[in-house]
């Protein structure tokens, strides 16, 4: 079984590393996943966990993954909104865990929106 000793070691390591992450900092990119009934039913849970895991794995200190409720576009769920520090907002629709990797690499890391996944591209579905 996992032991609390192991958790203590994790705590000590976490305290020892200087935290570069600034919660709520204006320099952060926010990735917001819709987690209301509509989002969850459409498959938002694996999308959210894939984002969290990948961001942690790549050590992206400036990316915050959070959740929100229903934004009223239930037919496009799972929806992921990306808020950038300059005020730009991108809405990705009909998300799947497979699409997450490209969004992280192309958009969150390299700053280029993945147009084909945005609401603008699939807007007339």
């Amino acid at each position, binding site marked *: *079984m996992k032991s609390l000793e192991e958790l203590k070691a994790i705590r000590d390591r*976490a305290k020892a590393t200087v935290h570069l992450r600034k919660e709520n900092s204006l320099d952060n990119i926010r990735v917001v996943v819709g987690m209301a009934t509509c989002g969850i039913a459409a498959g938002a849970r694996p999308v959210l966990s894939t984002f969290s895991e990948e961001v942690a794995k790549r050590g992206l200190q400036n990316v915050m993954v959070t959740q929100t409720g229903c934004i009223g576009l239930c037919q496009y769920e799972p929806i992921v909104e990306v808020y950038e520090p300059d005020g730009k907002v991108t809405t990705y629709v009909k998300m799947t865990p497979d699409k997450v990797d490209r969004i992280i690499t192309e958009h969150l890391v390299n700053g280029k929106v993945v147009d084909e996944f945005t609401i603008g591209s699939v807007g007339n579905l």
Partner: protein
Amino acid sequence: MQELSLNVLDIAQNSVRARASLVTITITERSADHFLEISIADDGCGMSEEQVARVMDPFFTTRTTRKVGLGIPFFKLSAESTGGSFDIQSALGKGTVTTARYHTDHIDMMPLGDMNATILSLISMNPQMDFVYRHSLDNNSFTLDTRELKAVLEDVPLNTPEVVQFMKETLEEGEAELLNQTT
């Protein structure tokens, strides 16, 4: 919803919105009786008797972005379609307990699904809250209590990646052991 664990995730979001500080999620299985009970208890703002009656209605919601509220009706239907039962106990200022009971041998029984993913999402998205997850199967049980973890972690947040990984492994081991003891 494809699996019951998604209903649990959805219903627990109501507890988050009700500004609960502690949410207790309990799964009780008795295999000989083909019985499964899911209970979600919170200490959030609670509801009046009149509100409790209305949340069962799919055309009632407190939100303004759309006109339907399907979370509770979906969860209720999942239980009742197996010949099981569903109820909500709530008191303003005290909290809410939502309970669904299932006949697991019924043809309309949905799989419980990935409860660990549900619990992990809830904890890592709401690190300031506390969650107790208890899964019992026949005479054995497994419990994860974030208050115990926080006592060890001090000011290190629950959603630190290494801590999330620790909780993930703890849940996986707990579940594996539960299934092992029973067979």
